[in-house]
């Protein structure tokens, strides 16, 4: 073969493979509002930044006449590229090739790019769109899943891992996304479940649509499996890019610093928080009033919304925000919000992102359902995560900080580096009503007018204890500051925390109450 012919042969082979499952399959994909795997990579990465790995890989299945079938790229596209200059490893399952089913070589391509990401300190993005295990390949396909899960676990805390669910992701396949740091879903396109509607119908006789069982809304509002929800694929890619501006490449680097920008004027901090601690407000407005350019990326925005977590910048530095949300369930801690908070805190700690905690909560959510759902062990995750974190920890108490909730929300006692309170703060062992009922039980029951006596005693307790000064007198908080001075304080705290060093006794790893 002449050199020219070799080149012709190369382009012919390459073109055939680049076409994936062919035009007809691609049209079917697009009719569902989905991009093809290759288009997704193009849409997400910087222009011309993609370098493909393993385009010429072929599957090795010889049973069931599989040897006669050509599966371009074995149903997955892998490679490296960049997002806004940020280097990433990426894989995208190609539904147009054998339904994106996962066989041995398909999995090997994924594990290869994951190994590369771990070694090179690059984030991994996995675009999932697969019918599941390639049944013809039998147990080899299961081996493939296992090897991916193993690497997800090895990579955890080393490089950020992002899963994008752009199609079905069912059965064992769901566990790779579940092991990664951030899961993105898209309305009407994402479907995640362990057992699908068919099996549920056969076994249980219960009929449910795929959407109601494991659609994007379910996972971003009810189950909490997904962190980000988008209405379409392009919006999803936009959100991924936004996330990348906040997180570092790996655990040895700091997140990129951006030029510091003041918050937008419309967030007037003095007017956001009502004086009456029983009145709700949106704590995200407090966050926006304090962070650079009022830009806040809400993680798990629609799940366990009684706790807000997400990324923002202060003085150009990325910070992780954890805040009670009085607007939803009065901002209580419960099973889901503890879980949500703990996971986020551990991400920030692993990747060197300072934590800012805003406190305003009446305590834990009462109820049989919560107790039986294990609010004790789930709540413990939050204590564990805050205590374990060695990144700079800054706590601002806005209004209520009572009882166990006060301790859990990154109090000084859990190792916070800075704890300040607004003059509106109420830091006490419990709310005035509860406390007065216990302390003055005999006075109240023995009074001629118990209701009036209770009112008096509650007022007495409120006057004496529902303020930040008792805690300040004991040094449990460092300072009482005005809302208007809070941003300057946060900037100061972030700036002087750059060299924070905290060494702890060696251990293989802790045992968090998973």
């Amino acid at each position: 073969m002449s050199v020219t012919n070799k080149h012709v042969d190369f382009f012919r082979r390459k073109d055939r493979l680049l076409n994936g499952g062919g035009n007809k399959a691609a049209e079917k994909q697009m009719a569902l509002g989905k991009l093809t795997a290759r288009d997704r990579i193009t849409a997400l990465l910087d222009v011309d930044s993609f370098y493909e790995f393993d385009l010429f890989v072929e599957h090795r299945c010889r049973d069931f006449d599989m040897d006669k079938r050509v599966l371009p790229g074995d149903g997955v596209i892998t490679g490296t590229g960049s997002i806004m200059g940020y280097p990433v490893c990426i894989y995208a399952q190609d539904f147009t090739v054998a339904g994106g089913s996962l066989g041995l070589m398909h999995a090997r391509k994924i594990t290869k790019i994951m190994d590369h990401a771990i070694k090179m300190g690059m984030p991994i993005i996995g675009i999932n769109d697969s019918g599941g295990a390639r049944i013809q390949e039998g147990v080899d396909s299961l081996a493939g899943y296992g090897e991916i899960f193993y690497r997800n676990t090895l990579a955890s805390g080393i490089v950020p891992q992002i899963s994008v669910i752009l199609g079905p992701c069912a059965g064992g396949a769901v566990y790779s996304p579940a092991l990664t740091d951030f899961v993105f879903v898209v309305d009407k396109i994402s479907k995640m479940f362990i057992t699908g509607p068919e099996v549920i119908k056969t076994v249980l006789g219960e009929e449910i649509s795929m959407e109601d069982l494991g659609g994007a809304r379910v996972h971003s509002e009810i189950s909490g499996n997904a962190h980000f929800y988008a209405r379409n694929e392009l919006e999803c890619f936009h959100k991924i890019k936004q996330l990348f501006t906040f997180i570092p490449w790996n655990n040895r680097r700091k997140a990129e610093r951006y030029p510091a920008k003041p918050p937008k004027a419309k967030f007037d901090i003095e007017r956001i928080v009502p004086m009456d601690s029983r009145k709700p407000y949106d704590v995200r407005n407090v966050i926006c009033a304090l962070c650079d350019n009022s830009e806040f990326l809400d993680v798990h925005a629609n799940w366990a919304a009684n706790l807000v977590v997400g990324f923002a910048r202060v003085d150009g530095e990325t910070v992780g925000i954890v805040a009670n949300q009085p607007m939803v369930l009065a901002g209580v801690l419960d099973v889901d919000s503890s879980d949500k908070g703990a996971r986020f805190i551990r991400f920030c700690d692993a990747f060197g992102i300072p934590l800012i905690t805003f406190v305003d909560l009446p305590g834990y959510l009462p109820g049989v359902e919560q107790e039986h759902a294990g609010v004790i062990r789930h709540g413990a995750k939050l204590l564990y995560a805050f205590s374990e974190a060695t990144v700079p920890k800054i706590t601002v108490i806005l209004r209520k900080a009572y009882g166990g909730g006060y301790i859990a929300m990154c109090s000084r006692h859990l190792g916070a580096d800075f704890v300040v309170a607004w003059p509106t703060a109420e830091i006490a062992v419990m709310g005035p009503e509860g406390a007065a009922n216990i302390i003055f039980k005999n006075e109240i029951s023995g009074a001629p007018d118990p209701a009036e006596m209770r009112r008096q005693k509650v007022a007495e307790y409120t006057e004496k204890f529902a303020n930040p000064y008792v805690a300040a007198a004991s040094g449990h908080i460092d300072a009482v500051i005005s809302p208007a001075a809070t941003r300057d304080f946060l900037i100061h705290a972030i700036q002087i925390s750059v060299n924070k060093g905290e060494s702890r006794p060696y251990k293989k790893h802790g045992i968090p109450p998973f």
Partner: protein
Amino acid sequence: MQTPETVRELVIGGVTYETRFTKKFEQRAPYIAPDSHLVRCVIPGVILSIAVRKGSRVRSGDPLLVLEAMKMQNEVRSSCDGTVRALRVAPGDTVTKGQIFIELD
């Protein structure tokens, strides 16, 4: 935000807070105390055989029926002493979680 826009009241520690509820909180099931005289299904499946009949006296630990579920023939045993008041299922029935199998006196 998937919460209803209407402000609701939530009482915590004797204080009434104005707030919104989450969908999950609104949909939570009320607690019902379990009754050990009602033998319930804990895993969906198919009834293979029933070892008791109406009026049978059973002791705690006695086998009541065999339920095939998750590729396993599970023996369902009584958790208390009593007499079978009613059988609510028959062999071959597909049963769902929470369904009552047998009522004991």
